[in-house]
């Protein structure tokens, strides 16, 4: 049990401008679940990618089962017995589960899928996972796709399985299911390395944990010997506030009224099927749900990119059905999109240009159709100062900013007009603890200023922290509504998974 299977010895990996791993040493024992814990940019994924042959270390060495590991490609790693499931899946969506497993294997050139299919069925059966091996991967749920990824890796008979943030896409029940099976796999002798920034998961699942910060190892500890608070402090380097001191909300009149809207998505998944919701001035409504249940369609409908086929959306009593996104903005709506790079910013434009994007057409940023540079520069300087945007200058290309700073640019732009309604979709996804804290505090400040805030998030902790009311979206509808005081994680998780929440008594 205490035999070291994988030893990382003073590994250093540099990328232009950063040292991603700085003399990192970790030893992984056979048959343990070992967490790599750290904020974004701490170097967890880089370390895992080195173990998986994606990157080669600049210095240091890795020893696997007593022998020095020389990896050039992931294929070498798999051949040696190390497999990895990345945060975004390495699957080919239009192909079946079986076909996805066969890619890159040493199976014969004449495809004979029956043997693979049998082995997969055995796997799935063994672990009580119900997936049709001939199903098209793109049509599976995200959780099922994750199973495919895991089994695809295990198919090669690896001894060490690395999982990069595997719970990000799962419901609380899905997480429990995953943990149950991971524990079983560990008991059967598999060594598991789990990358995460979620303290709860570390506490619940791991045997030992190595904390990374800014590319360096802070320490390796037995999970049983520490408290969550200790790990948080190791991870961030200072004390972390787990609870915001949130004042009671004083909701005013309804600012956003969504009344039974229907909206079909192109793919058929994530359509809205009669969704109703209201958000009042001075409150945060948290919309909880697993991704793909209509959040994207709702966001698109609210900002005016898509037109619902039925139902109505009113902002401050005005029906927005016939209005363009620009006019909706003039009603006092601001939005923070989930995909900040694709939907929120022009990455090849300057920071100051992104800061006025959308408002560039009106006073004072343009006069008679000509941009007013001095007004833009002045506003940009103010925003960079006010929102603590870390950039060398306002004329910096937006592409070069970190994720947290990108989000600050969007927040600065959207909040500058003092909106009546703020719709924030996954505002802290991918941000580290410090940046997340900042964004969350800003959202609460908006609430306290009197704005109506709709927070769409998959992070339940965030929902609980910020919301005055919680609504759960499932299959294009709101299936339950509650408050953070009344809600418990379990029932919320069940609603998110679509388990019927209608009172059992009414049927009898």
């Amino acid at each position: 049990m205490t035999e070291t299977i994988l030893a990382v010895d003073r590994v250093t990996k540099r990328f232009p401008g950063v040292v991603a791993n700085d003399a990192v040493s970790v030893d992984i024992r056979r048959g343990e679940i070992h967490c790599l814990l750290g904020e974004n940019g701490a170097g967890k994924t880089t370390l895992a990618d080195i173990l998986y042959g994606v990157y080669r270390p600049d210095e240091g060495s890795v020893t696997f089962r007593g022998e020095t590991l020389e990896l050039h490609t992931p294929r070498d790693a798999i051949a040696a017995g190390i497999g990895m499931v990345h945060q975004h899946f390495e699957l080919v969506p239009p192909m079946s589960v079986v076909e996805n497993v066969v890619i890159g294997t040493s199976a014969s050139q004449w495809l004979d899928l029956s043997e693979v299919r049998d082995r997969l069925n055995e796997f799935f059966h063994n672990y009580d996972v119900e997936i049709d091996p001939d199903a098209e991967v793109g049509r599976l749920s995200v959780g099922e796709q994750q199973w495919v990824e895991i089994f695809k890796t295990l198919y090669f008979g690896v001894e060490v399985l690395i999982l990069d943030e595997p719970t990000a896409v799962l419901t609380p029940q899905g997480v429990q299911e995953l943990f149950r099976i991971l524990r079983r796999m560990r008991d059967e002798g598999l060594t598991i390395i789990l990358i995460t920034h979620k303290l709860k998961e570390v506490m619940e699942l791991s045997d030992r944990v190595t904390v990374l910060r800014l590319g360096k190892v802070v320490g390796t500890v037995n999970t049983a010997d520490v408290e969550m608070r200790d790990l948080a402090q190791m991870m961030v380097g200072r004390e972390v506030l787990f609870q915001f001191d949130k004042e009671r909300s004083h909701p005013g009149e309804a600012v956003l009224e969504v009344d039974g809207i229907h909206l079909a998505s192109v793919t058929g998944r994530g359509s809205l099927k009669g969704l109703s919701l209201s958000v009042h001035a001075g409150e945060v409504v948290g919309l909880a749900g697993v991704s793909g249940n209509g959040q994207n369609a709702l966001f698109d409908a609210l900002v005016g990119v898509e037109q619902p086929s039925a139902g109505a959306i009113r902002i401050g009593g005005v029906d927005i059905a016939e209005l363009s996104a620009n006019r909706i903005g003039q009603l006092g709506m601001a939005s923070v999109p989930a995909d900040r790079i694709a939907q929120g910013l022009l990455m090849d434009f300057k920071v100051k240009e992104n800061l006025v994007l959308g408002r560039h057409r009106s006073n004072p940023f343009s006069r008679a159709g000509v941009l007013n540079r001095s007004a833009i520069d002045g506003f940009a300087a103010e925003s960079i100062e006010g929102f603590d945007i870390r950039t060398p200058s306002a004329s910096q290309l937006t592409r070069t900013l970190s994720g947290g700073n990108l989000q600050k640019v969007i927040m600065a732009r959207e909040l500058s007009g003092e909106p009546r309604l703020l719709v924030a979709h996954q505002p802290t996804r991918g941000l580290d603890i410090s940046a997340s804290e900042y964004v969350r505090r800003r959202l609460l400040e908006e609430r306290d200023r009197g704005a109506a805030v709709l927070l769409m998030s998959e992070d339940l902790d965030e929902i609980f922290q910020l919301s005055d009311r919680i609504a759960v979206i499932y299959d294009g509808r709101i299936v339950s509504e509650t408050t953070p005081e009344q809600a418990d994680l379990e029932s919320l998780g069940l609603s998110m998974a679509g388990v019927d929440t209608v009172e059992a008594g009414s049927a009898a």
Partner: protein
Amino acid sequence: MEDLFTSAVLVGIFWATLRIATPLLLAALGELVCESSGILNLSLEGTMTMGAFAGFYVANETGSILAGLVAAGIGGAFLSLIMALMTVTAKVNQVVAGLALNILGLGLAFFWYRSIYEAEGSIDIPTVETMQAPFEFFPIPWLTILAFVMVPVVWVFLYRTKYGLELRSVGHNPEACDMRGVGIISRQYVAVVFGGVMAGLAGSFLSLGSTGLFFPDIISGRGWIALAIVIFGNWRATWVLVGSLLFGFLEATQLALQASDVDLPYQLLLALPFVLTIVALVFNRSRSNVPLSLTIPYHRGER
């Protein structure tokens, strides 16, 4: 109208359909494999012209049709190798590279033709007849047989071999393949060059099998039609066959219409293939088989 339905005319349309469909089918099958790997090769027109010229020149010089066909394949491979160098290795924008090579292929073929033949008209080459398979009752060109045989060959390759599966995977998600050690570059080179050889052969059918002539605009848009057929066929070998035959049939009927005294604008039939392609695109939208990474260059480590 009746004279359009005489057996002589119908048989004529049948043979003309096969004849017209042959280069389309060859080029479209090659392009299908190429696009399956994620590379859009827009230079079919130029590549076919190159094949037509190389085949014509070598057949004329050596007196051997077979040597001409080999040369046509090499000519197509030559141009597509440049395409692969630009798009797979140098990761140039595929549309730009394809359009540029189109001009290069047309220009080179024209240039060599003019410098070798000094603007002579047609030159006699060792007969179109030697292209025919020796079935007396069934005067069908070898290349037509090859084109039809290639349909199941391409299908089996793409859907029943591991290499084909991996080639299609590269076209959908090269990163996933890279992570599993599947060679992306080699597969894309194979696919692009295969497409070039097929386009070269398709071109040579026009100069060696159809007319026995070469002139600079001998392809006259067939490369573009082959590209449309791949879209019409929704990136499926069987539907590419259907598309080629349909396009061939419409063209053949249109020709027969022109020859008859039926008062129907043949331009309508000429336009029909393209209308059908657009209609097919609209209807396929939700279950399109288009390779998901088509035209997107893959850079390792950009994650």
